[in-house]
């Protein structure tokens, strides 16, 4: 192997020191033969870094002024490729096909945006059908990935399923024929997101925000729902608004009342009055639990996803489906009042070791062993949600692949703010882990997970088959200690309105 040049060694050290992974002293220790020459350069790097200007959020007024100026500014004519003269038909084809393909590929694979780069603009992700925004008295089509500034009024058509991701990482899933206006969307000194819902159904996942005065509100003609870090649904039908909470708690406010609606509870409101009877949703949920060496992601029939990625990102886009945070124990996915159809479950490895996928449906439990060497499991599920229960059945086999890294099917918009929050959480957990390790006073030997690609052929698994028939894939039921606490999608309880003093 060729000896790296001094420039290469310096470059590596610069990156390590700049990223805070190593101190100057540690770098010098690692490269004793270059230490004398490296030190002054690394000191110079630290000096330059002192001049760095911190990142800032753009001024919404400037953005608005820019967009106004942009609409007045004509574009240059495109460069005419030489081939267009020789192959006019091909060039016309390319002019239509290439951009369309680029957009389609972007839409199909993953949307990973830096929505945090804008203090105000939110990002639209389209999963099915169409969405459009109001412009004066007209409605103009919205594209997948569109930026939605404050004031945007948008609606989905009869087949439209969309997701809006706000700057703090909170998301709102829009069902078909849903209309909503983004009244406020900021997350600077305090998070303030306010929506006005005029019709349809919204499934809101509100990012946790401990700061005082942070708010996330959905206002309808019937009531205002105030949330902090929670998952809830607001549905407008038959002249009233139904609010149900799946996780955490929300407050439903009318001009007369203020009611706390906890997980599993639901209330209805009509014209600023809470109705005496709650909307009960009594179906028994199904649940999928993976052990701690893995994370799971459930992708719905329309492409919306609920689950977690190996980097710790947690998302809950599927109305009626919830996930626990894998950072706090075995990850548990709960399927309540979801749309029936074909779902895909992707189980990805995050640590070495074997594990289990526990399936709880129709009052039964089944456990699938997850092998120590395999990286990614992909399973197709048939989910049937009735008024009484949600049933999960596996279709086809289990596909085991080395990795699905390049075919990530979840479509997430990861904002800068959400990424930073995730980074902070990771550091906290790392510190906590180190603290625990030190307390245990065990030998400080650790194994860095080295995940080798290993392809295992597709193995058909039928959950209704006796475990002994496929001993390598189906194991007896796991012990209850491996299962996370009971789901929060429990049957709804009736909440009586209380009168605000």
């Amino acid at each position: 192997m060729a000896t790296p040049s001094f420039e290469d060694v310096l470059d590596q050290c610069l990156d390590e020191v700049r990223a805070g992974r190593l101190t100057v002293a540690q770098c010098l220790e690692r490269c004793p033969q270059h230490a004398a020459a490296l030190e002054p350069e690394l000191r110079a790097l630290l000096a330059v870094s002192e001049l760095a200007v911190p990142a800032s959020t753009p001024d919404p007024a400037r953005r608005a002024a820019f967009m106004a100026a942009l609409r007045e500014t004509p574009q240059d004519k495109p460069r005419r490729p030489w081939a267009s003269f020789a192959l006019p038909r091909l060039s016309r084809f390319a002019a239509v096909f290439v951009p369309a393909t680029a957009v389609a590929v972007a839409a199909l694979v993953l949307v990973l945006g830096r929505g945090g780069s804008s203090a105000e603009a939110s990002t639209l992700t389209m999963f099915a059908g169409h969405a459009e925004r109001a412009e004066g008295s007209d409605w103009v089509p919205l594209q997948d990935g569109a930026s939605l500034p404050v004031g945007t009024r948008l609606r989905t058509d009869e087949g439209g399923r969309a997701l809006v991701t706000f700057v703090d990482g909170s998301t709102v899933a829009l069902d078909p024929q849903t209309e909503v206006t983004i009244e406020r969307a900021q997350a600077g000194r305090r998070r303030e997101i306010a929506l006005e819902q005029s019709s349809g159904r919204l499934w809101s996942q509100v990012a946790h925000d401990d700061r005082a005065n942070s708010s996330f509100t959905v206002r309808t003609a019937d009531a205002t729902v105030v949330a902090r870090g929670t998952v809830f649904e607001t549905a407008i039908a038959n002249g009233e608004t139904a609010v149900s909470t799946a996780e955490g708690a929300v407050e439903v406010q009318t001009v007369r009342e203020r009611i706390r609606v906890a997980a599993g509870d639901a209330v209805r409101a009509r014209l600023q009055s809470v109705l005496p009877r709650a909307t009960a949703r009594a179906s028994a949920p199904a649940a999928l639990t993976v052990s701690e060496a893995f994370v799971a992601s459930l992708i719905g029939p329309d492409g919306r996803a609920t689950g977690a990625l190996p980097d710790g990102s947690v998302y809950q886009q599927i109305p009626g489906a919830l996930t626990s945070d894998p950072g706090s124990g075995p990850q548990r996915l709960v399927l309540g009042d979801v749309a029936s159809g074909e779902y895909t479950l992707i189980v990805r490895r995050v640590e070495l070791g074997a594990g289990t996928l526990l399936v709880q449906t129709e009052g039964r439990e089944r456990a699938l062993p997850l092998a120590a060497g395999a990286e990614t499991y992909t399973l197709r599920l048939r989910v049937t949600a009735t008024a009484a229960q949600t049933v999960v059945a596996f279709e086809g086999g289990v596909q085991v692949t080395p990795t699905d890294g390049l075919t990530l099917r979840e479509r997430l918009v990861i904002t800068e703010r959400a990424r930073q929050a995730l980074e902070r959480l990771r550091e906290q957990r790392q510190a906590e882990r180190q603290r625990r390790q030190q307390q245990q006073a065990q030998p400080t030997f650790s194994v860095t997970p080295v995940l080798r690609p290993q392809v295992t052929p597709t193995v058909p698994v039928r959950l209704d088959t006796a475990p002994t028939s496929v001993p390598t894939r189906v194991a007896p039921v796991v012990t209850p200690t491996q299962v996370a606490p009971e789901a929060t999608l429990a049957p709804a309880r009736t909440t009586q309105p209380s009168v605000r003093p």
Partner: protein
Amino acid sequence: MNVREEFVEATALAERRVVEGLVAQAQQGSADAFGALYDRYQPDILRYLTNHMRERDEAEDVTQQVFLNAWRAIPRYEQRSVPFKSWLYRMAHNQMIDHFRTHRRPTRDLEGIDPAVEAEAEASVLASERRALLETAMQRLSDDHREVLTLRFLMEQSAAEAGEVMGRKEVTLRGLQLRALRALRKEIEALGGAL
């Protein structure tokens, strides 16, 4: 490559595809698509220009002009030639040079410290002096040296990314950054400072 690295690579690929899609739409005249590109890159370009120009308001104005120029020129941009982000950085660099040609280049020197600052605590004064010294040393560097240090250490770009912006091979850029650091040390010493 482990799952996390695969994920990072996958997200980078996906980000590239999203940007390609937005660029393609903007090339067809979509203001919304260009607005989305503005949201993605405006903070980076503003930070880059502020790092160079040290005057936030001026940098804001130049940033707006960069994006307007980019909107005008985007139909002529070829995705295969250089990544869109690097293309924007090049435009920002050129716009900044144009700006300095028509406006007096802001210079700072050690005598320019605000007297009010001197009344502050000694530590604060020392920090201000050190900062002024570093800024002066940076201003005295050649354009290439200042650019490579800005991209690598103020904008935290990798050597490969900085190379794309500056139109240099990665290996050439590493040599350039070494020379730039040495030149900076020399300037700091010439100004009577020490690292």
